[in-house]
């Protein structure tokens, strides 16, 4: 690349940063990620468009009801995330929410969240609860609003554009001192759900807590996730999405890509930094840099999925 052209790209990139979101775009082909700066990708719309059609946007950890120093107005930052999604040139087909919709499982918090979500231009939203949504023993408030898809079990699957989506719940059967748990019944259901599906079907699995162990001392993992991975291993394109840790962590293992999303509410510290995974206070002007959404596009040739993170900055 000549110096002149690189300078132009940089100018374009900075221009895009001024009005668009900053983040990293990932292309995935045959299980391998290629990260591209989002602003640079946005500068070349034609090339970006050729990467595929936007399939879905992942929203996570909206924590409606949180009002502490780390972000006194989580409704406003969720609203900005919604504006960002609504402003995409090409609207994705779906929204996935990977849990902690609310902070304290309160009815009023769920109501506020639903009012905010109703502003999304994309009307099809699929959810999985976080432990903050299920703090009431019976999970009544969450299931009253979002339980229909799973018959109040918390796990279900659906198909869209040839992609098979599996929504799992790993926050109900907590064990003192342990990690998240899927449980034997849910794992048996997954086996049944995947049975007979072609290995060429792209699979998206989403749950709230990470489905691989990121940091056990803070419970950032799922105890019986290895049994789930055994069932997914035969598929050619598997994308595993989680929230919970309020920051991006990624891993590629064979044909499986693991991705945790940012929160739209507040950041959390890096694993092991500080006493625990509580709200991290950052200077107010830096907050948009650490909040955001993830969008995923379906790439037709080869048929795979592409991840794309955007901050609110």
């Amino acid at each position, binding site marked *: 690349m000549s110096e002149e052209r690189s300078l132009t790209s940089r100018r374009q990139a900075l221009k895009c940063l001024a009005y668009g979101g900053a983040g990293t775009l990932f292309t995935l082909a045959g299980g391998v990620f290629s990260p591209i700066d989002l602003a640079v990708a946005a500068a070349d719309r034609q090339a970006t468009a050729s990467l595929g059609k936007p399939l879905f946007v992942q929203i996570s950890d909206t924590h409606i009801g949180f009002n502490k120093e780390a972000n006194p107005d989580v409704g406003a930052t969720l609203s900005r995330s919604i504006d960002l999604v609504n402003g995409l040139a090409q609207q994705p087909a779906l929204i996935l929410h990977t849990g902690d919709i609310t902070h304290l499982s309160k009815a009023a918090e769920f109501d506020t969240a639903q009012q905010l979500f109703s502003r999304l231009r994309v009307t099809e939203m699929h959810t999985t609860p976080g432990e903050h949504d299920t703090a*009431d023993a019976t999970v009544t408030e969450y299931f009253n609003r979002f339980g229909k898809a799973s018959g109040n079990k918390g796990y279900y699957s659906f198909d869209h554009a040839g992609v098979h989506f599996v929504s799992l719940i790993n926050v109900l059967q907590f064990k*003192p001192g342990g990690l998240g748990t899927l449980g034997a019944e849910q794992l048996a259901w997954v086996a049944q759900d995947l049975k007979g599906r072609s290995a060429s079907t792209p699979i998206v699995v989403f749950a709230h807590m990470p489905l691989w162990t990121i940091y056990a001392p803070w419970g950032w993992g799922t105890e019986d996730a290895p049994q789930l991975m055994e069932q997914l291993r035969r598929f050619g394109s598997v994308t595993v999405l989680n929230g919970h840790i309020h920051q991006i962590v990624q891993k590629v293992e064979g044909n499986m890509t693991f991705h945790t999303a940012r929160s739209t509410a507040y950041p959390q510290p890096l694993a092991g930094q500080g006493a625990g995974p509580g709200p991290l206070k950052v200077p107010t002007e830096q907050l948009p840099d650490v909040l955001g959404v993830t969008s995923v596009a379906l790439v037709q040739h080869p048929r795979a999925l592409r991840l794309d993170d955007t901050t609110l900055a």
Partner: protein
Amino acid sequence: MSLRGLLFSCVGVLLLCAAGPAVQAASAAASTIVMAKDFMFAPTSITVEAGSTVTWTNKDDEPHTVVSAEGLFRSAALDTDDSFTFRFDKPGTYRYACSIHPRMVGTIVVR
């Protein structure tokens, strides 16, 4: 009674006094557990007399719950400074954890 138990009995008595004359003299001491700011129940284990009331107070910016491992009691999500109280009538060892942060565990021994 251990030194720690004695200390908490004293704290309990002080709390009762602070609450005013309406509080009736209890045959068993009330105890308080404070959830520290660092994602731990402190103290992790306490011993109380049967009939004692234990109060948990959340001192973190993050919500916590108090959930009995045996299914005996379960608090709602406690926001900062929210409390949950449970009375232990029968002697035994009661384990509990925070369902939001299952690494937070504690024990109440009732004599």
